[in-house]
């Protein structure tokens, strides 16, 4: 045995060592559906491997042990999630706890490994969130199946995945309606108008002093409540969604851009004056580049707000397509697997839209301190 309880993942390992024999004992004596022998063997192997692991080992030994741990835990988890009778005994639940502890221990071990750069240095930060995500999905699947939770309350991830793959055409029409038509057009109009207006505001100090507090105040209000008004004005189709998005993104974007345009200091502006640069030249070569970190901050905030605005606006009325429409009607029909697939698409879309601006920010504002040392 190498390393004690005080090493990272130590007490999870101790817990594992306590739970696994308990699970084996319960499985041998208990009633009802019990985990199979393979699951039990894998769990026992996990305990043995875990106690073989420690800071004293060579690097390659540790890597091999981690890989082996990952595999036996995967076998145990798959065995628990896939073969179910709906009447699971205590041994099953003990095995569930054991796999959860094992996953946690694995994450603790991996988090402790010092990155060395290269491929492993890039992959390592992804391992822990990945293991956590997979564990949550697996626990969801196993618990739903073991407890026989009705599909109208919580469908299992596999059912959601099945529905997702079967109804790609519906999901695609919804995505086009909500994202391409509603969100993107509203986002472009709102952010574009805000940036142009910020240029005007910036020329007049009086306007700037007055608009910044008002804009900050308006940005904190529940603008989403304007959705029913815009639906009455612009009809059920996408223009009303785009209008809600415009209303939601305008003030955050305006405030950020105005702050960004004020980010240059007097020395830099004086230098431009000594070059006898005009307003336009100063804007293009000095002030707009200096404003970019603020502009991108605004764009990232607005990217999230825009999708929320478009989806919620559809709750107030929409044609018979769109993500918000689908969510609210399928909830009414208790088709929760469809609702979850729609939510999964919305989540991926939201992260992708945000990620697009974050990547662009890295390319454009590579000179900014917050982008260095990555």
């Amino acid at each position: 045995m190498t390393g004690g309880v005080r090493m990272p993942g130590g007490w999870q390992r101790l817990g594992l060592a306590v739970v696994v024999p308990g699970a084996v004992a319960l499985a041998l004596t208990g009633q009802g559906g019990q985990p199979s022998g393979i699951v039990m063997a894998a769990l026992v192997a996990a305990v043995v491997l875990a106690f073989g692991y420690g800071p004293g080992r060579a690097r390659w030994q540790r890597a091999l042990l981690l890989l082996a741990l990952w595999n036996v835990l995967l076998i145990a988890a798959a065995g628990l999630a896939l073969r179910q009778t709906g009447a699971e005994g205590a041994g099953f639940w003990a095995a569930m706890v054991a796999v959860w502890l094992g996953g946690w221990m694995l994450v603790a071990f991996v988090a402790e490994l010092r990155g060395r750069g290269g491929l492993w240095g890039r992959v390592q930060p992804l391992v822990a969130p990945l293991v956590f995500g997979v564990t949550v999905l697996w626990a969801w699947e196993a618990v739903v199946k073991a407890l026989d939770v009705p599909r109208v309350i919580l469908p299992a991830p596999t059912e959601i995945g099945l529905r997702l793959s079967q109804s790609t055409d519906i999901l695609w029409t919804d995505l086009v309606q909500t994202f391409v038509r509603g969100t993107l057009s509203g986002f472009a109009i709102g952010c574009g108008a805000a940036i142009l207006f910020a240029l005007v505001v910036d020329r007049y100090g009086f306007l700037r002093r007055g608009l910044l507090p008002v804009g900050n105040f308006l940005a904190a209000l529940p603008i989403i409540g304007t959705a029913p008004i815009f639906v009455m004005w612009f009809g059920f189709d996408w223009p009303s969604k785009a209008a809600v998005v415009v209303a939601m993104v305008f003030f955050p974007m305006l405030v950020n851009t105005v702050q960004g345009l004020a980010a240059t200091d007097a020395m830099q502006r004086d230098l431009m004056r000594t070059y006898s640069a005009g307003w336009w030249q100063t804007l293009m070569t000095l002030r707009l580049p200096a404003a970019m970190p603020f502009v991108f901050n605004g764009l990232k905030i607005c990217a999230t707000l825009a999708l929320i605005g478009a989806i919620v606006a559809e709750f107030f009325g929409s044609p018979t397509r769109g993500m918000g429409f689908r969510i609210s009607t399928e909830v009414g029909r208790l088709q929760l697997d469809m609702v979850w697939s729609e939510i999964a698409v919305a989540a991926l879309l939201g992260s992708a839209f945000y990620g697009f601006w974050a990547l662009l920010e890295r390319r454009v504002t590579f000179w900014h301190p917050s982008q260095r040392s990555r």
Partner: protein
Amino acid sequence: MSRTLPVLTVVAALLALWYLAVIPMNAQWERDQAARAGADLPFGQLVARTMNQDRPVLPAPHQVVAELWNSTVIEELTGRRGWWNSGSLSNRSLIYHGWVTLTATMLGFAIGTGAGILLAVGIVYNRAMDASVMPWAIASQTIPIIALAPMIIVVLNSIGISGVIPKAIIAAYLSFFPVVVGMVKGLRAPDAMQLDLMKTYSASGGAVFFKLRLPTSMPYLFASLKVGIAAALVGTIVGELPVQQGGLGVRLLSGSYYGQTVQIWAALFAAAILAAGLVGIVGTIERRTLKRMGMAT
């Protein structure tokens, strides 16, 4: 204050723009009415009428203010079901609906903030949690989690949980993630020098937490509390849409069903006043606290 005059000017300009917009937005209906009656409609009369329609496309500001006054003070004092005559708040008044929304918001905000702070402490003190949970907490900020709201309401309703709890859950998870991210940043704010100083005092873990990390995190905590309480209010309003049991969200939705534009605007302004009040209260607590801690900037 040098900001008062510019701010007042901007607000006055916005109001003037609103009044100007009222005329063309509502003019069509008045012209149709006049044409049907065969009457002549001079411009002055047209403007006067657009300001006082029953169901305007865009109500004038004074109509919204009047509706706000009527559906709060007047309704409660003189209405048959008002507070003065029946002893309980009238379900036609914005005070009642605002109160329904406020209770759910506050309950959810308390749950979300408490859980968020606990998770942040866990993340700061546990490497495994930091490595596995933190990326998801950050990623969850970029996804429209509010899309879960109708499902949570309906599912909880179907298993017999209704009333304030489902709305509070939505408010809680909307305010949860900003608090986690802000609080993690705050608890990590002490620099190496300060942590080393604590070590030279041979301070215990608890002392480092309560005397260094927690006080340093306060500005970050309050910044995310302001974001969180606004998000909690939005969550509650959206959570009120699927199940019609009172609240400002219900007023918005029923107003849009029956074309009562003035009612929608009044509910919208009530929600805005509520949001401004809540953020203002958090801001006041922030100023007082930071001042007493000697951290005011």
